[in-house]
């Protein structure tokens, strides 16, 4: 069957879709503009706030931390811990931390006013790097700057070093990365003691926002309503920060007695909101002469920024993925998330795994070079197989054929042939363009880590309307990935009715049940399954009621819905997540089944490096992956292609430059994402292996592509530059400036002096 057309595609293509900044609230002709006044320093004690200039301050709505207890609320953004305030009271912990909120009908005057709020601050010493945070001088968070620490142990790592043929060590770094959804964050709030709080906005997780608002305002659940507007991209960046903006808008609206809209401009969005965690990873690996991994000792460190937010779970995923898709009898992964005085880091597609897998997959190439094996051969000798155990001791219970994925990738990219040709051509010192092939093999666990899904216990529903259409009720959001289309397809297929008869309701916490957040590659696999199950029970209910025969046409189905509703009232079926029986996870020891399943992949990058400008570019990219069953080929390929280009940006150009904890290049001119002129052709190949617990056999795929791109690209660059420079290429982003440095000190022949 041809892929179904995107549900809301027509609205998006004609400009009719309503994003938050496009909304007009019926019954609210006047909406105030809101803005946030932020800390200019990384750490300090707030002594005073001054409202200067010739600003008519009496016309402004002004909110500070003092207003929160005044309405009986709690000054915290509820995530895992409640350590992050909504507004600074006294202690400032990062640059751009929100201190004062302002609202006014005139947005230009509002902006003038924002510039005339100044602060008296006693600065305190601050911490800006992982290395400095480890020294605990000063301690800026908790007892020892550590948000979370855990160790995964398998076998006996320390028993191997003495006898191993080879020990290979390496240290790898990754920088922060901005999600750079093209629609900046924004929220509109209506709030008062009578009606409670209602917000509309750009978000991934309506119930996270709901949770935060109920805590901040100390309101019962039914007094808070969160409605997702059409959302222009998220990639993790609209997972937790929208809660903050919603709280800000709602505080202003409460005090103003009028709706307030806060729309960030790009500079504010870049400087203040969450990004991918910077990381530092040390590998020490024991290998036999024939290339078998004997022991892997991995120290994985994340910079979590100033507050915990969700760093602990990012650390979990990163740590669990750190040993990759390899079987090794002895593994130790020591993982720590540390505090620094930067804005808190948050979710970004991959969620810790791109960091740890970058380190591992670069390291695997280094091991291959030391052992004297081709990179693909080293990997082939160590692949996980069905029946074998991952680092957490999770036994692979599915048909897993990594050699086949590898062969497919090698063949499709002409890896071996091109590598040979490039190696020869690169010898010519007169040729300033050096080419390389690089690969990575990796996996991504779908759904929440460990017992996360069990604790979420998501609920989704499907209901029939008198017109015989079917509505899907879930809190998962359409953010570009195609959630609406896939849910509609799953329900239409489960019911055997036309796709057009299925409507996926815009998430609104007053209407949809809590099916959890739109994160963790869980929407199709976990919630899609709930939606499919609910649809099947709706069909069974109709059949059991006698309104519908066992076989039926779409027309008969519609008629049956009408009949059922007129006879019996409502027809709404719910489905709640139940953990598949095979999953067994120990949260304390980090042992067992970390995920219900994994998607598996082999990626190949073909690059060229211009030695005159030290610029590396990706010329071709091949992405081979097994993602269970592909339920929607166009959307699935779209996920991979988009993720691959984000990964290329992560590898080669996207640098968050921090100066005293603050992003210095917070403009699109200076934070460099790839354009249409920079994108390589991306070949996407799917292998299929239906996952019995996913809808139509699907696994999660959204994050997978981010995990393997950067190491494949850097491995290719390393090959292009030759072994001496390669050993210096351990960090991303690999900007031309850093590539130049990597070449310095490497052999003159590599430098390409053409004389």
């Amino acid at each position, binding site marked *: 069957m041809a892929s179904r057309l995107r549900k809301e595609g027509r609205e998006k293509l004609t400009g009719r879709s309503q994003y938050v900044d496009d909304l007009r609230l019926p019954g609210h002709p006047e909406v105030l503009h809101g803005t946030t006044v932020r800390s200019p320093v990384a750490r300090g004690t707030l002594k005073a706030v001054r409202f200067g200039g010739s600003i008519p301050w009496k016309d402004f709505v002004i909110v500070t931390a003092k207003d929160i207890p005044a309405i009986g609320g709690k000054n915290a953004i509820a995530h895992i811990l409640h350590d992050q305030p909504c507004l600074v009271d006294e202690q400032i912990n990062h640059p751009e931390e929100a201190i004062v909120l302002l609202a006014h009908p005139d947005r230009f005057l509002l902006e003038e006013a924002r510039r005339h709020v100044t602060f008296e601050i006693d600065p305190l010493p601050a911490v800006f790097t992982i290395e400095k945070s480890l020294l605990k001088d000063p301690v800026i968070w908790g007892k020892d700057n550590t948000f979370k620490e855990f160790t995964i142990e398998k076998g006996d790592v320390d028993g191997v070093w003495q006898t191993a043929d080879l020990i290979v060590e390496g240290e790898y770094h990754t920088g922060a990365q901005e999600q750079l959804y093209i629609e900046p964050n924004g929220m509109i709030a209506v709030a008062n003691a009578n009606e409670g709080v209602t917000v509309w906005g750009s978000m991934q997780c309506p119930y996270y926002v709901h949770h935060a608002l109920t805590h901040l305002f100390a309101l019962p659940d039914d007094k808070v309503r969160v409605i997702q507007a059409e959302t222009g991209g998220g990639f993790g960046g609209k997972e937790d920060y929208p809660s903050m903006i919603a709280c800000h808008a709602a505080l202003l609206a409460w005090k103003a007695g009028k709706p307030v809209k806060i729309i960030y401009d790009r500079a504010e969005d870049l400087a203040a909101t969450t990004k991918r965690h910077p990381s530092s990873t040390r590998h020490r690996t024991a290998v036999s002469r024939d290339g078998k991994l004997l022991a892997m000792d991995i120290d994985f460190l994340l910079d979590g920024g100033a507050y915990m937010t969700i760093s602990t779970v990012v650390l979990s995923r990163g740590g669990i993925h750190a040993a990759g898709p390899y079987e090794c009898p002895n593994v130790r992964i020591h993982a720590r998330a540390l505090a620094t005085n930067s804005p808190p880091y948050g979710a970004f597609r991959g969620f810790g795994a791109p960091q740890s897998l970058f380190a591992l997959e670069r390291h695997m190439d280094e091991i291959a070079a030391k052992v004297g094996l081709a990179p693909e051969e080293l990997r082939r000798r160590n692949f996980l197989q069905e029946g074998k155990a991952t680092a957490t001791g999770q036994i692979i219970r599915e048909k897993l054929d990594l050699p086949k994925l590898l062969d497919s990738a090698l063949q499709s990219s002409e890896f071996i042939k091109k590598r040979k040709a490039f190696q020869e051509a690169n010898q010519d010192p007169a040729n*300033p363009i050096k080419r390389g092939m690089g690969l990575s093999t990796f996996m991504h666990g779908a759904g929440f880590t460990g017992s996360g899904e069990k604790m979420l216990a998501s609920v989704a529903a499907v209901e029939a309307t008198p017109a015989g259409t079917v509505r899907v009720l879930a809190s998962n959001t359409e953010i570009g990935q195609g959630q609406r289309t896939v849910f509609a397809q799953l329900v239409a297929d489960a019911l055997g009715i036309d796709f057009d008869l299925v409507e996926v309701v815009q998430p609104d916490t007053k209407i949809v049940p809590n099916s959890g957040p739109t994160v963790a590659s869980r929407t199709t696999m976990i919630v899609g399954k709930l939606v499919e199950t609910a649809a099947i029970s709706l069909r069974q209910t109709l059949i059991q009621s006698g309104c519908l025969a066992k076989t039926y046409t779409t027309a008969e189905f519609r008629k049956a819905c009408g009949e059922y509703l007129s006879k019996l009232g409502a027809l709404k079926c719910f489905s709640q997540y139940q953990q598949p029986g095979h999953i067994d996870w120990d949260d304390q020891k980090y042992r067992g089944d970390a995920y219900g399943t994994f998607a598996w992949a082999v990626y190949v990058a073909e690059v060229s490096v211009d030695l005159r400008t030290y610029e590396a570019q990706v010329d071709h990219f091949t992405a081979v992956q097994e993602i269970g069953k592909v339920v929607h080929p166009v959307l699935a390929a779209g996920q991979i292609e988009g993720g691959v280009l984000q990964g290329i940006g992560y590898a080669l150009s996207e640098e968050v430059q921090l100066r005293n904890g603050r992003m210095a290049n917070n403009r699109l001119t200076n934070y460099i994402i790839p354009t249409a002129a920079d994108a390589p052709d991306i070949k996407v190949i799917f292998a299929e292996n239906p996952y019995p617990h996913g809808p139509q056999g699907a696994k999660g795929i959204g994050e997978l592509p981010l995990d393997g791109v950067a190491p494949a690209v850097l491995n290719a660059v390393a090959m292009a530059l030759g072994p001496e420079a390669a050993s210096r290429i351990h960090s991303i982003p690999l900007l031309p400036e850093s590539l130049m440095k990597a070449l310095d000190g490497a052999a003159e022949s590599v430098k390409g002096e053409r004389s």
Partner: protein
Amino acid sequence: MRGNIPAYDVRAPKSLTEALEFLHREPGAWKPLAGGTDLMVLLEMGVLEHKRLLSLHAVPELKGIREEKDRFVIGALTTFGEIQAHAELCREFPLLREAAASVGAIAIQNRATLAGNIANASPAADSAPALLALDAKLELASHEGSRWVEYRAFHTGYKKTLLQQGELIRAIALPKLAPGYVHAFRKVGTRKAQAISKVAFAGLARKAPDGKLTEVRLAFGSVAPTAFRATTAESRLQGRVLDLALIRDAKQALQQQLTPIDDVRSTAEYRRRVSLNLLEDFLLQAKNRGEA
């Protein structure tokens, strides 16, 4: 939007005389506004200082490209899109075409003007190295009349120019080139489009039948407070036959004129090294031309 839009007064004169009158009556009060691609960005950031702007979009005398016997005269408001669409101009000056195509992306090229790029006086202006290599001349018009100046003398320091109060750039003239030049333009940006240059280079060279360089023009952007002609290197090369020793010599000469900085886009060291590499690359290209 961080600019206080209501605070900006903008006038749109309908003729050059009217525009110059504005500038004359209140010296320094009015800031010319051409395609807006620089000033509107400053407005967005809330740092556009001039509150009174003179939009030149309706001044017909500043538009159009005309070919004369030995030169092309390009109206100040000519956009980079119009430059690329002008077949004769592009045939005569491929360097200018390449520079125009390297500006931002198409939607920027359709608004950004040549004179705006010059008057903004950024050392990273994309047109600067090409105009320098092409020996451009600028017509500066004022209430009193107009004068022609050499473009290479125009940028007198970081963001400083020869423009006097009351003066506008009216046109840019490019003398036609004799045939037989080797040319190169290279913008090293942060990406392939929508980039601000980290290093930009434009070069022109011509050899006599005996291999001697009869003319060589080398221009760089983004590696000093202004874009500049590498005059020391040029004079080392002038009249000589290119060989590897001479190329090394030219690179050494260039070193003295490079005063790049570290900033948010790149490092001084990178800019210096790439400048030298691009010079070497161009000279090798010139050397090999006609040798094979």
